[in-house]
């Protein structure tokens, strides 16, 4: 029985390569984290908590997951790429590469969008904020991209934008996510201006003495905040947050099960360079104005696919019984014909049942369709269901 650590490991670089660490590395180890390689970084997959923190949450993926749904959890997401985009008109320049309405992003607002390629495939999914003139003079944008894609994204942006905008990686900043129904109460105590942000709002706020960029967002389906903090102040801020009675640390294991329950995509699993926004069910990210001109990479391909229908679509799956179906599981129809592949799958602590998402043939994509997941050679019946599996509780 191999003592497997994480199915996230396949995303990591070769184990021989020295792992990068985040500014919270020492704190993770002090808190009892089990560290695993992820996207080239040593990251906490879960914690064995002790002392006062253990009274709030005993640690482990299940307990950390449930704590986030009940109270507030602190995640280190410093491995993600933060960058600044500056230029004469950076929003207009970026629009050539993403389907989102970036020029229409008002100061103090953030949006989820996609970097697409010529074939309409997805290079990465990312957050783009317009911090406003007082924070980024000249209309600069703030970007947060996936850890596993940041080098590729930055090279792509630089190659495509050339003189239209400059990309500056913000390697001297850490990124913390405070997520859960009690996150707003915690933030109201420490930084009232951040607690006043609307969903997908963005502001420069002093939190615990550190000059932070805070957005009202996250990737758990809960209300919460992502806090970009200067690296040298990250540990002090994390300790301040962990001192709040509602807060416990949570690792990548809980982050993965939380985002799966929320029906959110993990790049490399659910999104890749051959999946399109239409197939992935992300057409809502295409700005209304952008649908007039389709003037972004792969725009015409995506327009045609939207008109003609994609041959496969991303759906939610509820396996019958208790056996989880993991990423890579083949999906077949009632006749045993190939029908698709599971791209994320595991166990939902909230529903106490297995859940999955994957791509299926269009004729099987309607809610209620019956498919079979080939788990250890046996067809496991599953239903196509709407997502999210657990309702979002974003502040509105």
């Amino acid at each position, binding site marked *: 029985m191999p003592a497997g650590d994480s199915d996230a490991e396949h995303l990591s670089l070769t184990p021989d390569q020295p792992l990068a660490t985040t500014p919270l590395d020492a704190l993770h180890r002090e808190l009892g984290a089990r560290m695993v390689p992820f996207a080239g970084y040593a990251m906490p997959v879960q914690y064995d908590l002790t002392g006062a923190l253990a009274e709030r949450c005993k640690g482990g993926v299940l307990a950390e997951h449930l704590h986030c749904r009940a109270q507030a959890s602190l995640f280190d997401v410093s491995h993600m790429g933060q960058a600044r985009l500056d230029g004469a008109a950076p929003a207009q320049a970026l629009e050539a590469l993403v389907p989102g309405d970036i020029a229409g992003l008002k100061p103090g607002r953030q949006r989820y969008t996609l970097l697409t390629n010529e074939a309409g495939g997805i290079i990465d999914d990312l957050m783009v904020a317009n911090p406003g003139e007082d924070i980024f003079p000249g209309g600069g944008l703030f970007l947060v991209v996936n850890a596993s894609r940041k080098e590729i994204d930055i090279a792509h942006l630089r190659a495509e934008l050339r003189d239209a905008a400059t990309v500056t990686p913000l390697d001297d900043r850490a990124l913390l996510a405070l997520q859960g129904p009690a996150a707003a109460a915690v933030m109201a105590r420490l930084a009232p201006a951040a607690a006043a942000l609307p969903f997908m709002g963005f502001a420069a706020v002093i939190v615990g003495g550190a000059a932070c960029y805070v957005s009202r967002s996250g990737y758990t389906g809960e209300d919460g905040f992502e806090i970009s903090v200067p690296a040298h102040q990250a540990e002090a801020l994390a300790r301040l947050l962990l001192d709040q009675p509602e807060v416990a640390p949570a690792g990548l*294991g809980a982050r993965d099960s939380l985002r799966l329950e929320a029906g959110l995509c993990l790049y490399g699993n659910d999104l890749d360079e051959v999946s399109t926004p239409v197939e992935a069910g992300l057409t809502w990210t295409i700005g209304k104005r952008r649908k007039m001109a389709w003037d972004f990479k792969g725009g015409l391909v995506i327009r045609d696919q939207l008109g003609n229908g994609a041959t496969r679509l991303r759906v939610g799956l509820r396996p019958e019984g208790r056996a989880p179906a993991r990423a890579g599981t083949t999906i077949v129809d009632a006749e045993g014909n190939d029908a698709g592949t599971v791209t994320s799958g595991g166990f939902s602590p909230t529903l106490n049942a297995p859940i999955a998402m994957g791509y299926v043939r269009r004729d099987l994509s309607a809610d209620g369709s019956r498919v079979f997941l080939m788990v250890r050679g046996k067809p496991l019946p599953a239903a196509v269901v709407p997502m999210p599996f657990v309702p979002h509780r974003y502040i509105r």
Partner: protein
Amino acid sequence: MSDTRFTKDHEWLRLDGDIVTVGITDHAQEALGDVVFVELPEIDREVEEGEACAVVESVKAASDVYAPLAGKVVETNQAIVDDPSLVNGDAMGEAWFFKLEIADAAAFEALMDEEAYTAFLAAEE
């Protein structure tokens, strides 16, 4: 626990007559994390030594449980199927997986005893 034997796959065995009870070790459940699913073999199944015959899944990953010795499955523990978290709670006791009728008791004796397993774990660290 001098009558307990261990395998390099982090399983434990206890012999009673020609029936051996098999489970996963405390180290194994600790490494797996929260167990959420267990699948056990059919009764009367004949298994070879090293054959995958049960599955244990945590929130993080799925792992096979192997037959540590050749034999016939004579009993399985439905309690851990109904409540997989028992595996985290009492891996070395109540949360046994299956019982095998074995032909060769000498093979049991040849497996690691507790001292050898402890040393094996230390070397694996």
